[in-house]
């Protein structure tokens, strides 16, 4: 079984993977990183989003073996030194209900604000258009993002 080396949440990691294992499977089942969720498992819902070299990607659509030598950040990495502004705003606004979509949405929002610290509401909606939420109707999430950008 080939061994891959990559940076996961600011730490060097090595793990043996089969070529047919997805990044999502390896993160959750081999490395115990549970924030990326398996929702649709076909790239539609965004619950498995992680940052790959700073860009949001679907970890269910990437083979783990592809990320040899790359850098992955999950919500565990984002909140390593305490909750981020985005996470605080989500809590303050009571943005989530069941929370299954939350990690993916926090990843997408983090990428957005890294590139564009003061997005318009349309830009926020566009950035989150690939993250499905079945509880909230999105409004409290969008408002929380807006709030995070204003503080």
């Amino acid at each position, binding site marked *: 079984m*080939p061994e891959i080396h990559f940076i996961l949440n600011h730490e060097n990691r090595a793990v043996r993977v*089969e*070529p*047919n*294992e*997805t990044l999502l*499977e390896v993160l959750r089942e081999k490395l115990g990183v549970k924030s990326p969720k398996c929702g649709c*498992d*076909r*790239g*539609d819902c*965004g619950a498995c*989003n992680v940052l*790959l070299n700073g*860009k*949001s*990607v*679907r970890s*269910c*659509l*990437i*083979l783990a*073996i*592809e990320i040899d030598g790359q850098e992955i950040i999950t919500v565990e990495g984002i909140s390593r030194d305490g909750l981020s502004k985005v996470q605080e705003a989500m809590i303050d606004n009571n943005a989530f209900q069941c929370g299954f979509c939350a990690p993916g949405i926090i990843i*997408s929002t983090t*990428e*957005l604000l890294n590139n564009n610290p003061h997005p318009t509401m349309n830009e926020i*909606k*566009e*950035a*989150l*258009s*690939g*993250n499905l939420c079945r509880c909230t109707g999105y409004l409290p999430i969008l408002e929380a993002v807006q709030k995070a950008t204003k503080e």
Partner: protein
Amino acid sequence: MSIIHDFEYYKPADLKEVTDLLERFGTKAKILAGGTDLIVQMKEDVRAPEVVIDIKGIPKMNEILLEDNTLFIGACVTFSELIESEIIKKYFPLIKEMSETVASVAIRNRATLVGNICSAVPSADSAPILLVYDADIITKSSSKERTISINDWFAGPKKTVLLPEELVTGITIPLPDKKHAGCYEKLGRYSGEDLAQAGVCILVFEDLHYKVAFCAVGPVPKRAYRVEKFLKSKEISEKIIEEAKQYLLKEISPISDIRATEEYRTHMMGVMFERGLKKAVSRLHGGGNA
């Protein structure tokens, strides 16, 4: 849902290694770029390649270049890279406009334009733009390099003329020498993720010739030559648009599927064609960015 079958994974460092592998394994091998189609197909067991060849380690595959008035887009260029490219923004704003309609950010960060036309689904967003710009597809095998016109590329739904021993290294698009403007109109159920229910792309040149292509309303994306011929040398008016629509409806053959009915697609193609044509003409005269 996991990928249930095993395969060998290769990540060659040069093109020769890729073509050697393709020659050796032929139809048993699949090229992996963004993986947003291939991994789904492997999970659903639609495809079960014995060998997966990751081409992201090959130099120059992620280049966007404009040389001698010809744009080159490498096989590993993602839709996000197209959106961010200064060359695309300045010379081919229509490609940017189209790329922004493809799925959502996390998919665009991975999915490639070349992968889009290799998957060759009838709703491929890239296809109408490449058709109106007369793009060429550059393929390579261990014995030869081919240049294939996008007009000859699609062989049927999800089928292309690419041979098992070939890979696409990139596409080229000639920069038109005449002043022109264009528009891509896409119909989807919601923004983010949805495939086109219908799409139409229109280019207008200042000497009053037009190029029109569509996707998702026939087995393959294609040019609407009868519409182009009818519109040639004509200024746009309500009457001309109405007549042109009749030609357009003869060119398309939409089906009913999970995303839309045949009747809805047919009706909306007329609406979108009119909308797109007016927008393209207005942009030619300075109204807007493409």
